[in-house]
């Protein structure tokens, strides 16, 4: 057997391996990728949602209608800052940016300022197959639900 074969196979394995988690392996955020989710909003609207690594430290969320038509305007970027140990959630179109600690417990809460208003996005894990996401704004001394959804994993 040629000596080139093991090298080739090793390179092939590296190519197919998912990006390594840059932080604590129990960070559930990295479990979002690797398949699609079907999400139903609190208003009953359904979407197909995907989380894909754009680089080893960043996940891009996109969504499409159930019939497959992409929602091109929708994009969320989750970037992990390894130095700070925090996640940054940004809306490329809206200029929002929220931060969160790694997702090591049931809830993963992003908070920040957007358009002079406090915004909070909370993921609640239901284990591997599902999660809930709430989007809230802070007004008159309390958090107000703006939108939410529940998501189930479609495939992996």
């Amino acid at each position, binding site marked *: 057997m040629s000596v080139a074969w093991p090298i080739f196979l090793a390179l092939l394995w590296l190519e197919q391996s998912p990006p390594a988690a840059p932080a604590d392996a129990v960070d559930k955020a990295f479990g979002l990728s690797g398949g699609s989710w079907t999400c139903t909003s609190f208003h009953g609207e359904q979407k197909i949602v995907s989380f894909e690594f754009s680089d080893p430290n960043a996940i891009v969320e996109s969504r499409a209608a159930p019939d497959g038509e992409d929602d091109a305007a929708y994009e969320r970027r989750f970037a992990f800052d390894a130095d700070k140990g925090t996640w940054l959630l940004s809306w490329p179109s809206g200029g929002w940016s929220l931060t969160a600690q790694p997702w090591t417990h049931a809830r993963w809460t992003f908070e920040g300022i957007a358009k002079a208003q406090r915004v909070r996005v909370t993921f609640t894990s*239901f*284990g591997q*197959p599902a999660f809930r996401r709430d989007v809230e704004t802070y007004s008159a001394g309390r958090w107000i639900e703006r939108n939410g959804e529940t998501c189930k994993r479609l495939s992996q």
Partner: protein
Amino acid sequence: MSRRCLLGLAIVLACAFPALGSAANDVPQPAASSEPSAPPSPLPSSAPASASPAPTPVPVDRALSLLGDPWACETDHHAALVSAFSAPSEDRIDVRTTLAGGLAGNRHIDEAFVWDPVAATWHANVAGGAFVGSAPRWSGEVWIFTGTAATGGHTYNGRMVFTALGPNAFRRDFEVERDGRRQIYSLETCSRDLSD
């Protein structure tokens, strides 16, 4: 907490949707409980009411998976609830939901799901008639009750929809039909036994 909320199932939570009707008259309408209770039953007669169901495989009637340990629930408006499903008999599931009431003490909301063996149908009565409806066995991902929802002094065609979110979580929506389309007016997500 207002009376309408207490009586209207925190989940149903008519208080979240005053647009559905006047606040003064939205006490849920009591519903008659005339469901027959003869066997055969979807519930295994040998299983004690408090037995924990195996999460997999899905039982013939997924409704059984609701029994056992209480569920920690959260409404769309972040009210925290605890719901306990029990089977006092082979053809009935009772639900008691507890809301932490602070100084006023805990509040309870009761529901009953009664199995009609002739029609092979579950009949649900939620919070004294805030929702009354029926559904076949829960055999897929969703369990849909169709019936009526009494809220805001009005009665609407409505649905109560359970959606499994894996073995240890579910979502429950309450919907009414208005102007020819369905609207979710309240929902909750519930989970238990999450290991991670």
